[in-house]
């Protein structure tokens, strides 16, 4: 396939697949953090530090449930919405994906504030999840603004 053919193929790819890929990345990160936390361990940051401090802080749990578990739930819901939108092309599903990812970004801003100004440490895993969430929000926003382009994209 030549370059123009590849570009044409990419352009015809449903953008829900991009959202689903980002959702899978977020799901992977949140699943790792959840499994570590639920096993009573600390995330491995490699040469970077801060994960331990964030994980050991009282802010890493809400009502006794690790924050990462909520990240898993959010990513699963977003992934389901992306796939459903891909299959049905129903704009309401894109709207739901956009709204939920924006809600997640609001929480992410709050958690980043806690990391920077209260806990005094940054967890690179949490930051990666946050970046994936912001990316999902931006992609959903861009797709929505340009939705006419994708109205006829097929799976």
């Amino acid at each position, binding site marked *: 396939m030549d370059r123009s053919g590849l570009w044409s193929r990419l352009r015809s790819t449903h953008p829900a697949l991009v959202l689903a890929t980002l959702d899978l990345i977020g799901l992977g990160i949140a699943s790792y953090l959840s499994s570590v936390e639920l096993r009573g361990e600390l995330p491995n940051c490699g040469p970077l530090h801060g994960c*331990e401090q964030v994980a*050991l*802080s*009282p*802010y890493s749990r809400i009502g006794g449930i690790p924050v990462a578990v909520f990240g898993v739930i959010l990513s699963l819901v977003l992934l389901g919405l992306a796939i459903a939108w891909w299959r049905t092309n129903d704009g*309401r599903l894109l*709207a739901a994906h956009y709204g939920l990812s924006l*809600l997640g970004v609001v929480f992410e801003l709050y958690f980043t504030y806690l990391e920077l100004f209260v806990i005094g440490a940054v967890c690179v895993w949490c930051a990666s999840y946050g970046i994936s969430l912001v990316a999902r929000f931006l992609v959903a926003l861009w797709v929505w603004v340009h939705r006419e382009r994708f*109205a*006829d994209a097929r799976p």
Partner: protein
Amino acid sequence: MSSEQVRPLRRERRAAALAQRRAAPRTAARQPRRFGIGLVSVLALLAGLLIVAAILVVGGGPKPAPASIIRAAAPAGIPVSGRILGNAAAPVTIDLYEDFQCPACLRWGQNVFPNLVRNELGAGSAKIAFHGFAFIGAESKDAGRAAWAAEQQGRFWDMWATLYANQGVRENGGSFGRERLIAMANSLGLDVARFTADLDSAGAAAFVADGIADATRAGVNSTPTVIVNGTVVAGGYTELAAAIAVAAGR
């Protein structure tokens, strides 16, 4: 069938579908405008702010000191000998330096400690030796004195668990005030008169002062610090279990 034959047909089908959709009145598939981006954004922002507000009010972060005393106990089935928890003859010693006001110590007790109890302490392959490092403030020292006073009645680890269960939001904010410490002793069924006398004794004061001096000599500058057979172990249960296995020669 060759690709030359297929491609024009696919293009034709797509073009026809596109023309059909453009000609057709708006369907549910093309109605995101109904759910205007502004409305969804405002709703999402409001929901996000509500969730954050709810977390601030009732959810995450450090909890205020409970108004009533929470009674907690040392893990069942694990031998206790003074400040040693676990089989006294265990080949591996985990030296644990803590401050009862330290939130990270509370989390260590919630996350790492249960795994230790389930595995190494339960199997008798390791034991924990507690060391007080009361550096956060006056209530750290008071809590340390309470732990020592409970130890005089053979209940150090019950008081250890109870102190962490009653750790409050603010350091030196009254969580480990004298009345509350006595109430904790009462909740554990200790001889309160004896506990109170021990709380005020020179022995309790010496325990706290010696703990700080010992920790400083050992190079401890934060809590919790975990040392396995002389080697500081950072991280969580996985790292600790690996260090215990190495120390045990496994």
